[in-house]
């Protein structure tokens, strides 16, 4: 019998596919179940945000930033506000800095909880999603209590934060921290030692440290490959240098490590929140600047922070007017999505889904 001839074929995965987390389109060349080549097509969520920023005053840019990274909108606001404050040398009240860190870390936990749920769902376990979202709800309620919004907050202002926290916030926040740290064992119990989960994630999509650095990968994915790099420690911003927390790392760089690392990070964030709540000083929360006539000096600045996905940065060029001359946003997902075509070929389509899920790519950050 002559050798069986097989033919490669092309599958269009997305932009509307349940596991591409938004509107990413992957053109897959498949050999049966095996993925041979991946070509990501981005741009389906392009909103021209950088250009829009050029036509708005600095204060008007902040709500746009919520849409830059809507899963952790606080960090996107913070990175812009932080850049402007550095450029204009605005003094931020101490209390505002503490509140910012509390909100950033709460938002990081919320993002990681979504990661936990959506990754489990992509790998076929449907229940953890609801568990993750249940605890996220506590955090969202805290945000709503503080600034009235649940997803796009517009909370960070140039010179502080828009609202002081209400009286009930601190007890509620402590309660949420307690509940989440108790539920962590639930999350781990559901998946961590499940043989099917291990078979689906261990040694899948191994990303070596060298390659990760070469591709500009940052955040949890870099740390899961064994590189101890976190901007909160390496280049502290806000009050992170006063807080005591660890940078968890994992050695293998596979899907399982990326998953575990994010659970470890939730624990560290809980520690940070507790410390920040303990040290929260009294005082003002906003140093008023006139939002319509705020003119930072001419110059340029790059500000970067560690958000739940990796390094997030904003580069602003100012010509001394009320509007920025140029704004460039750096979303870590943009760097992360370009390494997926390196990792996934050779595996099955199910592995591709697992890799995509554990990279935790969100599309607004890629397309802006």
């Amino acid at each position: 019998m002559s050798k069986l001839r097989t033919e490669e074929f092309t599958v269009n995965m997305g932009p509307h596919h349940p596991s591409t987390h938004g509107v990413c389109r992957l053109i897959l060349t498949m050999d049966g179940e095996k993925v041979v080549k991946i070509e990501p097509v981005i741009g389906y969520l392009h909103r021209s945000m950088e250009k829009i920023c050029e036509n708005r005053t600095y204060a008007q840019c902040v709500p746009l930033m919520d849409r830059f990274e809507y899963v952790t909108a606080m960090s996107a606001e913070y990175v812009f506000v932080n850049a402007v404050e550095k450029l204009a040398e605005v003094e931020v009240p101490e209390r505002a800095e503490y509140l910012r860190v509390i909100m950033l870390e709460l938002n990081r936990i919320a993002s990681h909880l979504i990661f936990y749920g959506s990754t489990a769902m992509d790998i076929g376990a449907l229940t953890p999603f609801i568990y993750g979202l249940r605890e996220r709800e506590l955090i969202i309620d805290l945000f709503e209590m503080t600034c009235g919004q649940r997803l796009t907050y517009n909370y960070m202002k140039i010179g502080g934060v828009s609202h002081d926290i209400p009286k009930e916030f601190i007890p509620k926040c402590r309660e949420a921290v307690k509940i989440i740290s108790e539920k962590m064992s639930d999350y781990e119990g559901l998946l961590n030692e499940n043989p099917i989960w291990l078979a689906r994630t261990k040694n899948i999509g191994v990303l070596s440290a060298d390659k990760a650095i070469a591709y500009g990968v940052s955040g949890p994915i870099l740390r899961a490959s064994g590189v101890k790099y976190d901007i909160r420690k390496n280049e502290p911003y806000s009050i992170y240098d006063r807080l005591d927390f660890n940078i968890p790392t994992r050695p293998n760089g596979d899907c399982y490590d990326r998953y575990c690392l994010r659970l470890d990070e939730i624990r560290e964030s809980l520690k940070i929140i507790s410390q920040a709540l303990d040290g929260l000083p009294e005082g003002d929360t906003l140093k008023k600047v006139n939002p319509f006539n705020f003119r930072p000096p001419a110059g340029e600045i790059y500000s970067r922070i560690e958000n739940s996905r990796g390094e997030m940065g904003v580069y602003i060029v100012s010509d001394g007017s009320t509007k920025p001359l140029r704004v460039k946003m750096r979303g870590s997902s943009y760097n992360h999505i370009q390494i997926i075509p390196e990792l996934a070929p050779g595996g099955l389509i199910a592995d591709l889904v697992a890799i995509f899920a554990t990279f935790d790519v969100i599309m607004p950050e890629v397309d802006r």
Partner: protein
Amino acid sequence: MILATAELIGIFKWLHGLLVDLGLKEPWLTVVVYGLLSVTIFGVLCLIALFLVWWERKIAGHIQQRFGPMRNGWHGWYQTVMDALKLLQKEDILVDTRDRPVFFWAPVICFVAAFLAYIVIPFGKGLIVADLNIGILYIIAITTFTVISLLMAGWGSHNKYALLGGMRSAAQVVSYEVPMVASILTVIIFSGSLSMVDITESQQGNFIFNWFIFRPPFGIIAFITYIIAATAEANRTPFDIPEAEQELVAGFNIEYSGMKFAMFFLAEFVNMFTVSAIATTLFLGGWNGPLLPSWLWFLGKTLLVVLLLMVFRWTFPRLRVDQLMEFAWKFLVPLTFANLILAGWMKYAGWYW
């Protein structure tokens, strides 16, 4: 004639008598009686399928710390009825490039094959349509029929995701058929018959301890392997790769809408009930049980097995397609065959039972 009047329960006995009194002659008598039986079983199974959909949603809800359907009636009991009505009214969206006959017949075959198995399932004492002497063999043959329909759906849809889903289901069902049959054969060694009624009757007596599951270790191993293989056979998580939502969107039924989709959907739940009913008949004593009426025992045990399958679905992640195959061929097949051979040897040597 396979049908013996004495095997039918009251209403059909009465009906049979009535028809004889009316002067209905053979072969019309058989046709009418069988027709009525089929319609009854079809109706009951449709109700069971609708109930199972509702039940699954409730179980899923409670596992996930929510309520599930709550709006239509008490705890949303007629939610699935409304869903079915909605699907009936939906536009039947058709792909232009479909393979017309294949696309049309796939859901029909799936639906019919799902129901055909019930001809030989004893729902209670004497509550069986036809006691074929090759009953279990017939069931194995008929349930495998479903895979043809899935393959047809995958091919006929002219969609790559559907095709992948169809191919996956073919590979999966054919692989898991082997350990499934091997575990069923263990029971046949115990009972010495292929007839579903004989298998049930050989588990009678001794309170409940004559059930084949209480014949350690072979009965238990066969039961567990059967349940695993049956989960794969019914395309349920963790073996639901043919319709793996996150990979293949919806797998083989991606291009189906309206009533055609509903037929696949109901057939899936009927299949789940079938494999549970077989598990009940083979391992859990069928309708045998103390005190309660036989049909209630049967229904209770079957629903218990269904519950097990549902809990599987809402707690496990999904296996990858190659891991699934490895699990079948490298683990289940050797295990079931070793179990089968040892059980046969024990029976032959007369050391046991």
